[in-house]
C-alpha cells in the first residue's frame, strides 16, 4: 500500500515537471526571438551611436565636441539640469510627504495632476508656456515692456524642463512613504524632536534609495528632453541650443559624425543612468534580504517537505 502511494507520487511529480516547462525547442525558439528583438531594438541602436561618432576618427570626434556651438550646448544642458533637478527634488519630497502622511480632499486629483506631464505630449507642454509667456501670450506684453525674455531664452527652457521632469522624484517617493507610514515620525516627535530633525533623521534616511533613484531618472530626462524644449527655445545657435537640439541642427546640416559625437555623450549618460539604476536595485534588494534574514531563528521551518509526505 505504502509502495503504491510512493510510486503514484513519483509519477505525478515527473508529470508536473513536464507539465510546467515548455518543450526545449519551444523554450529556445522563444529565447532566440527575444534575443533578436533586443539585438535590433536595443543593442544595434546603441552600438551604432558610437560607431558613427567615431567613424571619422578621434580627431573629428574631438573637434565636433569642442566646437564652440556644441560646447555651449553642453554647458546649457548642464545648467538646465543643475537648476531643474534640485527644484523637482524639493517638490517631489514635499508632494510625496503631503500625499503619504496626510489625508485631505482632492488627493486623487493631486496624484493625477502629478502624473499629467507623463501623458501630455512634450510639444503640447512647450506650447502651453508659449501661450503664457510668448509675445502674443498672456504675460507677453508685460514681459516685453520690462525687457524680460522667457520664451526663446534660457528661463523658458528651464520652465519646460521642470514641467516635463517633475513627476519622477514624486512618483518614486509616494509609494515608499506610503508603505513606511508615519509611526516612526510620530515616535520621533513624541520623544521631543522638532519637525526639521524628524525629517532629516527619520524620513529622509527611510526614502534614501528611492530618492536617489528618482534623481537619476529626473536628471536623465532633464538632459535629454527634446520636444518641449524645442518649442520654447527658439533654436538660437550658441545661445539657446541644448544638446538634443544641437543634434537635430547638425543632422539637418548633414553633419552626421558631428551629430553622433554629441549624441554619444547623451548615450553615455543613458548607460551611466542604467548602470546606477541596476546597482541601486541590487543594493536595495540586498538590504531588503538582509533585513529579512535578521530574525531567522523565530521562523518555523516550512511545513511539508519530506517529513509530511513520509508520514502519510
Amino acid at each position, binding site marked *: 500500500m505504502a509502495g503504491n502511494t510512493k510510486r503514484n507520487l513519483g509519477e505525478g511529480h515527473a508529470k508536473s515537471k513536464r507539465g510546467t516547462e515548455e518543450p526545449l525547442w519551444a523554450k529556445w525558439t522563444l529565447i532566440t526571438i527575444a534575443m533578436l528583438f*533586443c539585438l535590433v531594438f536595443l543593442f544595434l541602436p546603441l552600438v551604432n551611436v558610437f560607431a558613427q561618432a567615431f567613424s571619422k576618427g578621434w580627431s573629428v570626434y574631438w573637434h565636433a565636441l569642442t566646437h564652440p556651438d556644441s560646447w555651449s550646448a553642453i554647458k546649457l544642458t548642464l545648467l538646465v539640469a543643475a537648476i531643474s533637478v534640485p527644484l523637482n527634488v524639493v517638490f517631489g519630497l*514635499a508632494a510625496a510627504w*503631503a500625499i503619504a502622511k496626510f489625508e485631505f480632499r482632492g488627493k486623487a486629483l493631486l496624484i493625477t495632476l502629478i502624473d499629467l506631464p507623463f501623458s501630455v505630449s512634450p510639444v503640447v507642454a512647450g506650447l502651453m508656456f508659449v*501661450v503664457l509667456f510668448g509675445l502674443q501670450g498672456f504675460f507677453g506684453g508685460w514681459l516685453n515692456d520690462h525687457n524680460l525674455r522667457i520664451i526663446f531664452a534660457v528661463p523658458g527652457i528651464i520652465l519646460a524642463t521642470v514641467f516635463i521632469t517633475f513627476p519622477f522624484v514624486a512618483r518614486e517617493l509616494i509609494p515608499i512613504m506610503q508603505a513606511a507610514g508615519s509611526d516612526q515620525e510620530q515616535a520621533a516627535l513624541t520623544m521631543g524632536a522638532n519637525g526639521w530633525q524628524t525629517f532629516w533623521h527619520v524620513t529622509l534616511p527611510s526614502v534614501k534609495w528611492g530618492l536617489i533613484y528618482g534623481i537619476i531618472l529626473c536628471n536623465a530626462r532633464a538632459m535629454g528632453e*527634446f520636444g518641449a524644449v524645442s518649442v520654447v527655445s527658439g533654436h538660437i545657435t550658441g545661445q539657446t541650443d541644448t544638446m538634443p537640439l544641437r543634434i537635430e541642427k547638425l*543632422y539637418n546640416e548633414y553633419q552626421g559624425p558631428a551629430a553622433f559625437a554629441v549624441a554619444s555623450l547623451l548615450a553615455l549618460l543613458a548607460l551611466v543612468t542604467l548602470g546606477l539604476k541596476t546597482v541601486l536595485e541590487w543594493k536595495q534588494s540586498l538590504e531588503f534580504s538582509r533585513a529579512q534574514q535578521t530574525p531567522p531563528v523565530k521562523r518555523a521551518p516550512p511545513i511539508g517537505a519530506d517529513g509530511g509526505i513520509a508520514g502519510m
Partner: protein
Amino acid sequence: MGFTLFYLSALVIIPIGGLVVRTLGLSWAEFWELATTDRALAAYKLTFGASLIAALANAIFGTLLAWVLTRYEFPGRRIIDAMVDFPFALPTAVAGLTLANLFAANGWLGKYLVPLGVKGAYTPLGIVIALTFVGMPFVVRTLQPVLESFEREVEESAATLGAGRLRTFLTIIAPTLLPPVITGFALAFARAIGEYGSIVFISGNLPFKTEIAPYLIVMRLEEYDYAGAITLAVVLLIISFALLVVINLLEQWAGKFVKG
C-alpha cells in the same frame, strides 16, 4: 503642503488653464474647422495608426520578453534585463538619430532591408519602428512583477490534472497576464501619441505622408498660426486626459485581479 499646491498650480494648472482660455476665444465653428483640416486629419490618422501598431508590437514582443526574462535562465539574461529600460534612459533625439541611420539605405540594417523593399527611414514604417523602440519597456515592466509572483502550484496542479502545456498556458496563465498586458499596451500607446523627438529624425515629416500631429503643431507655431497650434494641442490634450483615465481604471482592474 502649501508649497506643493503652489508649485503644482504654477507649473500645471496655470499653463493648462491658459491653453483652455485661449481656445475659448475661438468660436466652436472656428475650432472645428481648425481641428479638422485635411492636413490635420491625415496627421491624426498617421499618429493613431502608427501608435496602435507600435503598441500592439510592444504587447506581443514585450510579453515574450517578460516571459523569457522571468522564466528562463540563459547567458546574457541579466544584461538584457538591465537594458530593457534603455529606451527610457536614452534621450529621444538620440534614439531617432541612430534608428534613422540604422534603417537608411546605407545603414547597418538598411543595407540589407532596402534592397528587399523594406524602407525604414523617412516612411510611416520608420515612425512605427521609432514608436516601438520608445514604448518597449512599458509592457515588459508591467508584466514582469505579475509573472514573478505567479504561483507555480497552479500550473502544476493543472498539469497533474492532465492539461497539456499549451492548454495550461491558454486557460490558466494567459487570463492572469491579460490585465497587465493591456495596461502596458495603453501606456505604450499613450506615450506613442505624444512622441515627438525620435520621430522628427526618422519620418522625414512630409505633409499628408509622414507628418505626425505633434509635428504639425510645431509647424503651425512656426507659421505664427497660434490658433491652429492651440486647437491641435487641445485635441491632443483631451485625448491624453481620456487615456489617463482609462489607464487608471485599467490599473485598478488589474490590481483586483492580482489580489483576488
